[in-house]
Structure formats: C-alpha cells, structure tokens
C-alpha cells in the first residue's frame, strides 16, 4: 500500500490544498480501517469541519469499501480494490474501484427508515452513503467505480 503525491505523512502545509493519492488494497475487510484512518487524517489536515471528518467520511467510506470487498470482489484476495482520492481543498472526491459487474444505485437503495425495514439487519449501507455524501455516482470504467463527493460544509 503506497500513497503518492499526497504528503499525508508529513502534514499538508496550509497553502497547499490539492491532495491526491491512488492505492490498492487486497479484498480483505481488515484493510478498511487503515484506509479510513488515512482519509480521515487528510480530511483533518485539509481543515474540513470536524463533523465531516469524524462522521461523514468514515461511515460512507467504510460502506463503499465493504461493498467493494464483499460484493464487488466477493472477497477474492487476487482481486484488488483501488482507492483514488482527490481534494482541491473545497471538496473531497473518493473513487472506489472493484472488479465486480456493478449494480444499479437507485434500484439497490431502499429506505431503511420505513417501519417495515427498521428491524432488518441489512440494507443501510447505500442509504448511509447517500445521506452522508453530497453526491454518489456509480459507473463502469476499468472496473466498477463508486464515486463519492463531499463538499466542504460551512
């Protein structure tokens, strides 16, 4: 796992707002926390509001990563999950790429807050991603890509 062009280990100077990295992890859920830690750290270094770095980013990102590992790549260790991160200082963009066929974002999301769904164990992942990010897109390009965009909140 190697970050590039990020400066995330040494801290981002106040005048430097553009940060990006591109890395791959094996399809193992044990890697989720370290990726989330990394993106949370960059979120804080870029001085995004604390709430966005402590709630929106970790929950949405862990959902996207677990979907990619468990559903997209079916936990196949030979299939990597790619994480592309980019921020211009005003918004964070994270793209998660797996080797699955993809899914219909609209049709796959049900409302877990409806009374008939409230006691279900599953079905909250995409809902949380949509609730916590400003935009979620899914498309196929060199794999199944889920693109999450979070704007800096006031």
């Amino acid at each position, binding site marked *: 796992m190697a970050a590039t062009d990020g400066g995330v280990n040494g801290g981002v100077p106040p005048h430097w707002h553009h940060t990006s990295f591109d890395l791959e992890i094996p399809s193992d859920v044990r890697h*989720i*926390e370290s990726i989330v830690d990394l993106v949370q750290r960059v979120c804080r270094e870029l001085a995004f509001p604390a*709430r966005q770095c402590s709630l929106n980013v*970790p*929950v949405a990102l862990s959902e996207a990563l677990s979907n990619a590992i468990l559903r997209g790549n079916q936990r196949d260790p030979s299939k990597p999950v790619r994480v592309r991160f980019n921020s211009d200082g005003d918004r964070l963009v994270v793209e998660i790429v797996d080797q699955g066929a993809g899914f219909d974002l609209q049709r796959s999301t049900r409302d877990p*807050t409806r009374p008939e769904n*409230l006691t279900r164990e599953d079905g*909250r992942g995409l*809902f*949380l991603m949509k609730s916590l990010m400003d935009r979620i897109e899914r498309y196929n390009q060199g794999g199944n890509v889920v693109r999450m965009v979070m704007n800096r909140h006031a």
Partner: protein
Amino acid sequence: MSFTITKQDEVVVVEVEGQLIVGNRQELKQKVLDELERGGRKFLIDFDQTGYIDSSGLGVLVSLSKKIREQGGELRLANLNDDLKTLFELTKLDTLFQIADTKERALESF
C-alpha cells in the same frame, strides 16, 4: 478495536473500544450471544470509547436486540457521542433502541 465485558449486578456491560464495523461485528455478536447463552438477560452496550459504526455494526445491534428480546431480555445503549446520535437518528434506529446519556442512567433504568 476491542470489546470488554463486565457485570454490574445483573447487567452485562459491553464496552466497545474503537470502531464497530464489518471486520469485528461478528466478535461482538458472539460475545453477547455467549453471555445470553450463559443466562444473561440485561445487556448494556456502552459507546463511550467508540469511534464510528458502519451499517453492518448497526445491523448487529438490531440482530442482538431481537435475539435478546426473544429470550425475554433487554438491550440498552449508552454514551452515544454526537456523531453516533446522528447516525442513529438518520437511520431512525433511535426509535428502536432505549438510549441513555450515561452508563449510570442506563443501569438505573433496568
């Protein structure tokens, strides 16, 4: 990430340190089910030291709540920080669980 289980009178208190996510939710589930098997009926999960929870972590809480209730027991939650409260409100799980501000209040409520 770790789960610490203690007993306070009849209440099984589970402290979640770190994240409750897809990688460790089964461990929490098994620990609580083991206590249920041993006869525990009153359960309190304390989130004072918890970072974030993902949908699979929320799912395990829902599942445990059902299993404990099926055995005539109760599951209560305590010490949700503002982020976790928001998460429960977004998913409306705040309407499903009894949530106390502090561990002491939760213990008193049983």
